[in-house]
């Protein structure tokens, strides 16, 4: 089967949906929209199976030569290796589930067709991104998903706020893309190609470990990744991106697109291995981000923003893993995260619809009884996110990262501590949200329950976010390494420095303990809320901090003051274009000369005679002067 089909099918259906935006009935739209993803999912699975069967390195396909000019060549070539397969599967399967969910969620939306068109377009672009054989094509997907994210965040365009959120997302990510673009130029300059495999091969010959050039390139690539994956310092767009419909948040801003950065780094891991500095930077960024985002998530009131910040935080974990050289761990966490975060988002979506588009958690509560089904799936999701030991996928993936952040080659005890702190925070904010929503007394009435089309995907994801963990178990319990083995041909195994079961146990124990204590704190805070705790939280200093964190550590304000305002101000004052003044001034000067001279044409004969005489005098005097002096 042809890999090209996988992205082409969604593109095709997107095209159909765009053209048929008037003619097609809702049912037809839904069928085409979801069906196409299902189809490409089927193809993907087929290819994956075939791939697994005849364990070849990769399946390649050259579709056509995109452009070729003066020694530069880039084709529309697809390449599926272990890494791509993982991503493709997650994208198509989770994507399909979300589409099905969306079919229900968006049911009374007038622009049904436009929505699915964009969603399909996104899936297609995302697939191109992960299947691209050269960086230019990857960039194509990269920008394509950016576009779709823009279109979908601003889907409800009538509210200007959404539009601005969409714009912000696009521009902020574009900043990262610029860095990435420059990285591409440099790579071409040195390797003479943008074909990923060739680059990875020639890189090792071209650069020694720690060579400044490769470090720069890696850092620039990291810039791109940071932009897309909403890591520090470009994380500010993601929380605002929640303006989009919930399925969008689930698909783009949780499961797939935001992990493109992870994919990019994993894909070009060779370059990062050559540039330890860059790799460490990655880890540091990841560590800081996951903590900061954790704090922010802790104090949000909007349920979707909590999830948004938690996404940022979880991707921070992935970056941390990448930075420590634990490639497969990062990808593993991506998989599990895709499952449980999609689950949580869609659960949140179900709640929001149920409560008449109410997103404020403090206006929810006591939903345990009314939305029992949602309650259960949400619980599973939260548990997985909070990494409750042994039963959840989240535990296995995250625990692996926590452990490796210390023990791996690129690891450091500081990272480890940050990861642990993150675990505590995760537990807290997750279950703060959970308790706020489902416990306490009812504040808003449920006006309609989510239908099957919305619930079935949730069930499936609930299952996945539980069992998915068992494909990779740590040494201490079971030691299953299906996943890392699968990725082995692409991503080298992590080099662990201290192979000691005791240490690993302690690490795991600690993380589990912290997660649980986090949950406990959340329970105390939200459900019982003892006096002392309330007082503590009401302390002015703490209040200030809560506000500070809620505003995402005021990064927005910072950028606003540093970049946005100056630029806008400058362009505003220069609206009339100062350069033009130069020319208008010249014109005025000419006018002035005219008026001055026009005076000499007084019409008086005497005056004219005087003119002639003066002329005569001038000429004569010049002559005399020239001769005698």
């Amino acid at each position, binding site marked *: 089967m042809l890999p090209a089909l996988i992205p082409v099918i969604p593109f095709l259906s997107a095209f159909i949906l765009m053209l048929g935006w008037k003619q097609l009935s809702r049912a037809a739209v839904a069928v085409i929209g979801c069906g196409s993803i299902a189809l490409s999912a089927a193809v993907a699975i087929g290819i994956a199976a075939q791939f697994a069967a005849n364990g070849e390195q990769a399946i390649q396909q050259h579709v056509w030569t995109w452009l070729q000019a003066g020694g530069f060549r880039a084709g529309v070539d697809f390449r599926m290796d272990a890494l791509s397969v993982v991503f493709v599967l997650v994208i198509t399967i989770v994507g399909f589930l979300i589409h099905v969910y969306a079919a229900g969620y968006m049911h009374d939306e007038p622009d049904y067709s436009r929505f699915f068109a964009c969603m399909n377009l996104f899936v297609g672009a995302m697939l191109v991104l992960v299947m691209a054989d050269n960086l230019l094509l990857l960039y194509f997907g990269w920008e394509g998903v950016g576009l779709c994210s823009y279109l979908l965040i601003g889907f409800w365009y009538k509210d200007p706020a959404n539009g601005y959120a969409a714009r912000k997302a696009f521009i902020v990510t574009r900043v990262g893309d610029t860095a990435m673009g420059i990285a591409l130029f440099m790579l071409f300059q040195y390797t003479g190609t943008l074909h990923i495999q060739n680059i990875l091969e020639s890189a090792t010959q071209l650069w020694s470990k720690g060579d400044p050039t490769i470090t720069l390139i890696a850092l620039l690539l990291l810039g791109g990744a940071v932009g897309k994956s909403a890591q520090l310092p470009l994380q500010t767009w993601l929380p605002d991106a929640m303006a989009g419909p919930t399925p969008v948040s689930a698909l783009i801003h949780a499961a797939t697109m935001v992990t493109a950065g992870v994919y990019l780094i994993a894909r070009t891991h060779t370059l990062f291995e050559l540039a330890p500095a860059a790799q460490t930077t990655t880890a540091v960024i990841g560590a800081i981000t996951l903590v900061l985002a954790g704090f922010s998530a802790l104090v949000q009131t909007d349920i979707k923003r909590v999830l948004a910040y938690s996404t940022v935080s979880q991707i921070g974990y992935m970056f941390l893993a990448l930075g420590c050289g634990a490639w497969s761990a990062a990808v593993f966490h991506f998989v599990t995260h895709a499952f449980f975060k999609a689950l949580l988002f869609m659960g949140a979506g179900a709640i929001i619809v149920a409560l008449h588009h109410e997103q404020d958690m403090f206006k929810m509560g006591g939903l345990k009884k009314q939305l029992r089904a949602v309650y259960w799936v949400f619980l599973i999701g939260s548990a997985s996110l909070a990494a409750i030991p042994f039963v959840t996928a989240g535990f296995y993936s995250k625990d692996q990262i926590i452990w490796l952040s210390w023990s791996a080659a690129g690891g450091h005890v500081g990272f480890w501590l940050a990861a642990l702190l993150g675990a505590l925070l995760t537990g807290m904010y997750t279950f703060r949200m959970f308790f706020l929503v489902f416990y306490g007394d009812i504040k808003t009435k449920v006006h309609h329950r989510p239908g099957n089309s919305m619930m079935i995907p949730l069930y499936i994801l609930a299952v996945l976010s539980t069992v998915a963990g068992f494909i990779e178990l740590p040494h201490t319990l079971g030691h299953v390494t299906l996943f890392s083995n699968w990725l082995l041909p692409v991503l080298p195994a992590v080099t662990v420095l201290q192979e000691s079961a005791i240490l690993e146990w302690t690490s795991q124990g600690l993380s589990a303990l912290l997660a649980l204590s986090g949950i406990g704190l959340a329970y105390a805070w939200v459900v019982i809320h003892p006096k002392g705790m309330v007082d503590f939280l009401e302390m002015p200093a703490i209040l200030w901090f809560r506000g500070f964190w809620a505003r995402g550590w005021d990064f927005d304000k910072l950028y606003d003051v540093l970049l946005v305002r100056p630029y806008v101000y400058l362009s505003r004052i220069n609206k009339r274009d100062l350069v033009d003044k130069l020319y208008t001034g010249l014109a005025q000067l000419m006018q002035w000369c005219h008026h001055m001279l*026009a005076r000499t*044409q*007084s*019409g*008086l*004969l*005497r005056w004219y*005679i*005087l003119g002639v*005489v003066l002329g005569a005098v001038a000429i004569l005097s010049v002559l005399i002067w020239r001769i005698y002096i």
Partner: protein
Amino acid sequence: MNVHPTTAGMLLAGVLFVLGLISILVRRDIIFMLLSVEIMLNAAGLAFVVASSHWGTADGQVMFMFILAMAAAEVSVGLALILQLYHQLKTLDSDEASKMNG
């Protein structure tokens, strides 16, 4: 003090010329302006005569004849015009004749 006669003659002509020039500048009455132009012309004529006497050729004198003739013609036309103008402006002040400017 012995100046070469030619030089002296030329100087005289020059002085005449400048006199005419000055008077045309200071006069506003058109007739007088015309007169002063005539003076200048005659100064030029004088210069020619002097020059030709210097070279001992007749060209200068011939030229002077021409000048006289031309001056006469000019004055005749000029006076006619002035008459015409006087009919319209009821004055000989040249400053009145400044309807066109700019």
